[in-house]
């Protein structure tokens, strides 16, 4: 699974000259705290997992890539365009799909209304909207609930509605923040299949704290820790990182993840100790 995903990724990576996501020196601040610290990241076609402990900056990165938040510093190029300008940003937004970690909906809206509304916001041609909405709802397995009000749905179904709105415009860049929250195991399996399908032609970035989601659905992984990239590589490489380290974790990928995060922490603690020793001298 992992091996062939990797093979596919390298095959499609050679296609485009500029990567769909190119980020240089990206810094995001929330008041005094630094959420992302000069992050450099280039992501090609395929499904990318974004792992990291809570507060590591996953949501901050996803929101900048979704053009919802502006970076304090740095350059963000999406689908080959600089999104700091209005024109290119609007063009990128038409080809973007975004599932926020939390989202609301209007009380009277049915699933169809909700997804159609987002299609309208994404400026899809009116004639294409009804078909695209049904296709998107079908892909998340909610066709039998399409005319049900969103507020009567279960948490997992609301999340699938959210996924449907994100994919309604067949996005070339799909950003999902904790998409599997509230999904039961069977739905997760179906969702991962959907991710792989979308990822065959688009760039999909999944922010999650669930290592098993990444291990099952993603070909590439980036681990964030305290606003910096702690690890980048294939899922296989992350798994290999955990081999024989004796790090805690229930499976090799989790051990690899823990190893990556701890390595950064101890490195930083080490340099901090060195710095204080330096100062003491």
């Amino acid at each position, binding site marked *: 699974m992992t091996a*062939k*995903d990797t*093979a*596919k990724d390298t*095959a*499609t990576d050679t*296609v*485009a000259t500029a990567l769909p996501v190119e980020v240089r020196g990206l810094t*995001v*601040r*929330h*008041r005094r705290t630094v*959420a992302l610290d000069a992050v450099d990241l280039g992501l090609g076609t395929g499904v990318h997992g974004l792992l990291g402990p809570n*507060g590591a900056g996953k*949501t*901050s990165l996803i*929101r*900048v890539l*979704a*053009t*919802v*938040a*502006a970076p*304090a510093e740095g350059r963000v190029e999406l689908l080959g365009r600089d999104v700091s300008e*209005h024109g290119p*940003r*609007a*063009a990128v*937004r*038409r080809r*973007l799909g*975004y599932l*926020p*970690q*939390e*989202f*609301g*909906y*209007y009380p*009277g809206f049915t699933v*169809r*209304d909700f997804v*159609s*509304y*987002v299609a*309208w*916001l*994404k*400026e899809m041609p*009116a*004639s294409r*909207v*009804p*078909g695209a909405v*049904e296709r998107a709802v079908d892909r998340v397995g909610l066709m039998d609930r399409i005319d049900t009000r969103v507020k009567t749905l279960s948490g997992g179904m609301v999340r699938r509605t959210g996924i449907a*709105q994100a994919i309604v415009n067949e996005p*070339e860049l799909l950003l999902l923040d904790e998409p599997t929250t509230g999904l039961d195991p069977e739905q997760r399996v179906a969702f991962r299949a959907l991710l792989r*399908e979308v990822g*065959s*032609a688009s760039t999909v970035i999944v922010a999650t704290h669930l290592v098993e989601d990444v291990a099952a659905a993603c070909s590439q992984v980036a681990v964030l820790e305290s606003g910096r990239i702690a690890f980048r590589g294939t899922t296989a490489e992350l798994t290999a990182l955990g081999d024989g380290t004796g790090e805690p974790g229930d499976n090799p990928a989790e051990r690899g993840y823990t190893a990556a995060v701890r390595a950064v922490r101890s490195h930083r603690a080490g340099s901090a100790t060195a710095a204080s020793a330096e100062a003491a001298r």
Partner: protein
Amino acid sequence: MSAWHVDDSLATAYAAGSAPEPGAWSLEKHIESCGACAVLVSTAVRRGAAGPVLAEVREAVLAAAVRPAPPAPLTPPLGPTARVLWAAGPALRGPWLVALLLVAAGAVGLAYGAGFAGARPLLLALAPVLPLAGVAVSYGEHADPMHEIGASTPGGGLRLLLTRTTAVLAVSLPLLTLAGALMPSSVSMAPTASTVPSVFAVPSVTEAASVASVASTRAPGAAAWLLPALALVLATLVLGSYAGCRTAAGAVGGAWALAIAGPLLGASRLDGGVGITAFPTAELSAYLTRLLAGAGAQGGWAAGAVVCAGLLVLRRRSFDRPALGAARHV
């Protein structure tokens, strides 16, 4: 979409079922959107082992399809009217709509039920801030539950804000104007109308009451507030491009309240406290007339509206700009 295309060897391998799975996935996705490659692949498949079977199936399907079946009843595309309503719908938030109806019904009720002469000027004083409240509760990260999703779309900026503002105006302007027009305008025409004192000098309650009946005939027409309301809404949008709609509506509404209440409070203070118990109908009417009615006042409001509209055009990009560092979820 991309520069990648299916080549002959991949198409042949795919037709033979020997293409590696990732290659097959890429190919299947690609030919959904690339006609040339789709033709290439379908030719390769028909040439391959599956060719005779496909031909057979094709014959069978053509034979069965005596008459083409009617297309599946897909939901008809929404008309432009439906789409506008649907975009605007979320603007008309329940509590705001209720408040609006209460004000309109309350004013008419006060005028007829309680015979309160001040109802009409009071409505005119209150009416311009109601659309502002409507704008404040229908757009922005504090008010709109779908703002986070909308902020990542090309249509979530000024276009959405204007659609919702239009919806708010389309409901509130006719309703409040109608309520104003339904109000009784005083019929007791006093011949001494020219002796109406200035806002700041009302000596006694009895005189104030007699003045009230005169002044209420002079209260501005029910439509006099429309232009001021439009100017205030546009000012809110301009200010909202810097500070967000909620803050802007609060500031503009507050400024309006001060502009109305300030002179009246001053008048009642001069009045020795009497004005607090007796509603200063006369002063309010006279003041509103100066503020709203007449060619000069209306011209001023129109000019203000035009200036704000111009500023809004200059600020049109600011609504779809990503928020700097502002995090609703960290």
